């Protein structure tokens, strides 16, 4: 006789559990404080990647947070806020394999390796749609830009630079190659200046 309401309550509880489960899983990335997006913000003021997994020497523990890093790969992050302007990641293709991936909070939306380098240099510009339109309008006719221009799905995110040390003797070179990458904010006037000069 009393089983009916009890079963109804249990059923309602299970349905609610499903809703809570889905809502929690969807909310975790948004409210996480230890995720890569939040931790990468520490690199906002730097003009080179913040090394989060080095191969030589001991990195400060708050900067080496990767749970399962590849022991042969040096990793650095650059965070960006496109409200300040497009972010330019400039790397020189060296002897070691280098890859750059661009992440928003949801995940990676673009990646390329040093095989895409033009004349030994890799220039990746992350921008909003409006900034891309502006850059296209400022392009000098007949001149080919070697920038790889990416429209970001969100205003904030981070770029990850990975350099692989295939041999232990290349570890110092790999760390230096990550440090040598430049992450700078493109001022809107710069592309036209470059085009004229």
């Amino acid at each position, binding site marked *: 006789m009393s089983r009916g309401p009890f079963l109804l309550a249990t059923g*309602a509880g299970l349905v609610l559990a499903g809703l809570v489960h889905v809502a*929690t899983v969807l909310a975790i990335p948004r409210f996480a404080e230890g995720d890569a997006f939040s931790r990468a913000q520490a690199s906002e003021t730097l003009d080179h990647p913040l090394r989060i997994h080095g191969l030589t020497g001991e990195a400060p523990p708050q900067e080496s947070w990767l749970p399962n890093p590849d022991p042969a*790969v040096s990793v650095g992050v650059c965070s960006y806020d496109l409200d300040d302007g497009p972010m330019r990641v400039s790397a020189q293709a060296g002897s070691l394999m280098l890859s750059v*991936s661009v992440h928003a909070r949801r995940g990676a939306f673009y990646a390329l390796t040093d*095989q895409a380098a033009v004349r030994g240099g890799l220039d990746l510009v992350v921008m909003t749609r409006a900034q891309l339109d502006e850059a296209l309008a400022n392009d000098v006719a007949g001149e080919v830009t070697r920038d790889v221009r990416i429209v970001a799905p969100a205003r904030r995110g981070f770029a990850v630079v990975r350099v692989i040390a295939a041999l232990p003797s290349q570890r110092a070179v790999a760390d230096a190659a990550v440090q040598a990458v430049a992450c700078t904010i493109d001022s809107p006037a710069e592309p036209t200046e470059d085009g004229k000069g």
Partner: protein
Amino acid sequence: MDMQTPAGAGQGAETPARRAPRLGALLRGATSRSARVGLVVYALALGGVLGLVSADYATSGGYPFGGTPIGSWTAWPKAGAFDADPYARAVNARAGDIPLAVGEGMLLTAAADDSGRTLDATCTYKLSGITPPARAWTLTVTGRGKAEQAPMRDNFTSTEILRDADGQFAILLSPEVQPGNWLPMPRPRGPVRLALRLYDTPVAASVSSLERDSLPAIERVGCAR
């Protein structure tokens, strides 16, 4: 459980003779209301606790699903992608991990050998064969928890490997010293996991086309004790 309380309360209220019917009705109303409230509280508590515990269980540790099994290996091409499933994103957010993007490379993991037995730190395994096309790959072995002392080697890169004349290789994962490519066990006992990371590989975009033979076989050679 809910029906016992009104019975007990009713007996206690019957002692004052005249007011008993009214008081009894009032009490019955109150108890049936409190029983209803109790059921609602029970449903809310069940939903909240079960939902939170299951969400915590699903997002702590590894990815609950989304991998592509290839033999004893599991490929995770989408773990870091923009269109990754919500569970993978929650797992990454909790761990602070930055998985490889599709254009960068791909992660493959193995927790069992080719006959399905969990990789054990007291056993010796032979990894042999070929790897899918990639500019570089690394093989890493990890145990659970922190090691008492850092292992002298926990990974191989594709450049470091000694190869046969035909380009094939064999890596011996063992607690004992082995000739050739010896990868020491990171722990004295317990389960271990292998991670094969392919860098700059074309197969990340077409994992389903990978054959079992295109990945190293994991064969148990023997076990101590």
